[in-house]
């Protein structure tokens, strides 16, 4: 890679780093003020899905891994669980990059919804199912569904924001080519 690309890569990494931390902090501290029906939008999922969709599976995977890792360190008992889940999500969404179109804003919403569902489902599996609590329909109605709806709603704005950042970076990086 030439110097310029390296520069931009580092810049992107820095931006991702900041995004992960900021999103996590917002997600956790603004719960009091923005929660509806006990649900809070899962900003990190939006980040992972959006980045994977815009940039591909490598970005998706690494972002997913580190987002999940952050959550793991601060919350989980066993480190690596969320890292794995998010990583998988990023990886799978990354394949959607092939059908990435700059102007499309609805596809990311769909992916976000699916990804969040997957995330929630796996969360449920690990935290509840394996402890014998089998009432999935209850969890679905009361917890999973509100969060999916709220997350998708939030992703309309968040994706737009991330898209703008990415677009700005792309424009500057490939200006001469």
């Amino acid at each position: 890679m030439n110097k310029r690309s390296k520069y931009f890569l580092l810049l992107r990494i820095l931006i991702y780093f900041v995004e992960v931390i900021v999103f996590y902090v917002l997600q956790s501290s603004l719960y009091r003020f923005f929660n509806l029906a006990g649900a809070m939008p899962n900003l990190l999922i939006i980040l992972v899905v959006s980045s994977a969709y815009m940039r591909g599976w490598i970005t998706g995977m690494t972002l997913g891994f580190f987002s999940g890792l952050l959550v793991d360190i601060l919350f989980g008992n066993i480190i690596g669980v969320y890292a794995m889940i998010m990583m998988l999500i990023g990886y799978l969404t990354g394949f959607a990059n092939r059908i990435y179109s700059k102007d499309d804003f609805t596809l990311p919403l769909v992916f976000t919804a699916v990804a969040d569902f997957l995330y929630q489902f796996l969360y449920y599996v690990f935290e509840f199912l394996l402890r014998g609590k089998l009432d999935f329909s209850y969890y679905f109605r009361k917890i999973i569904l509100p969060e999916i709806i709220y997350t998708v709603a939030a992703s309309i704005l968040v994706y737009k924001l991330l898209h703008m950042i990415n677009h700005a970076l792309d424009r500057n990086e490939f200006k001469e080519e």
Partner: protein
Amino acid sequence: MRRREKIRLRPKHGLIIGLVVCLVLILISFRFNKYLYPVRNAVGSAITPMQKGINIIGTYISDGLATLKSIEELAEENKRLKEQVDILSYENKLLLQNKYELDELRELYKLDQKYIDYPKVAARIIDKDTNNWYNVFTIDKGTRDGLSAGMNVIAGDGLVGIITECYYNHSKVRAIIDDKSAVWGMFLKTSDTCVVQGDLKLMEEGKLRVEFISKDAEVEEGYEIVTAHTSPNFLEGILIGYVTGIELDPSTMTKKGYLIPAVDFERLSEVLIITELKEPLLTEPPEEVSENEQEK
């Protein structure tokens, strides 16, 4: 697309690497949980200030919004409280009136002691004229209570007026400040006589006219004037007021002045009626014809 050679990382391989890393981490954290404490500590301590900052900002904003919301509630409450204040204010006025009445009754009681030799009946003013100063008013006692026309009415510190009409359960009183009222008065200190007349113009200033003071009378500012024994209608010795502004009237060669009544006519509400009538002196015609009507 870049034209350089680069090692192609197949997605499948990437995934496998990633999964392996994760599993390793899981195993490590499973086994060596307590060694992870410093890691958690470090990361947590770095993140926490940011969370606190967001929290403070969020609280600040939400407090602001809550303030806006509660402004509406406060306006409602304010309206309610204002209404309550109005009601309480009204009740307070009633209480104050009661207090005035109490004070006046106390004063009358003192007065009662002063004019102890005259029998008296207490009454309340129930109807006043349109202006503040009571020149003709109605009291709530009448023939039923042993009153009759011509009886003197006093209050607080002095003379108020005289009953002009007496009905079954109420009576009409003309105050001395009325234009038509004339009282024969006497300076307490010197026994010089005079006439105290009500005057419509002076009523606003709270004064009465004093006339026909003997030009040789040695009277000064502030002397008390009481009802004279020569008065046909009024029992003698009742304080009327204090003289002021004495000057010589060139046309009648007598002194005249003004009188400030002892009674505060503006705030009158309780009076005493002396039920003893002045025995008419046969040598002088009465000052006014009083009517005595019986009403059922």
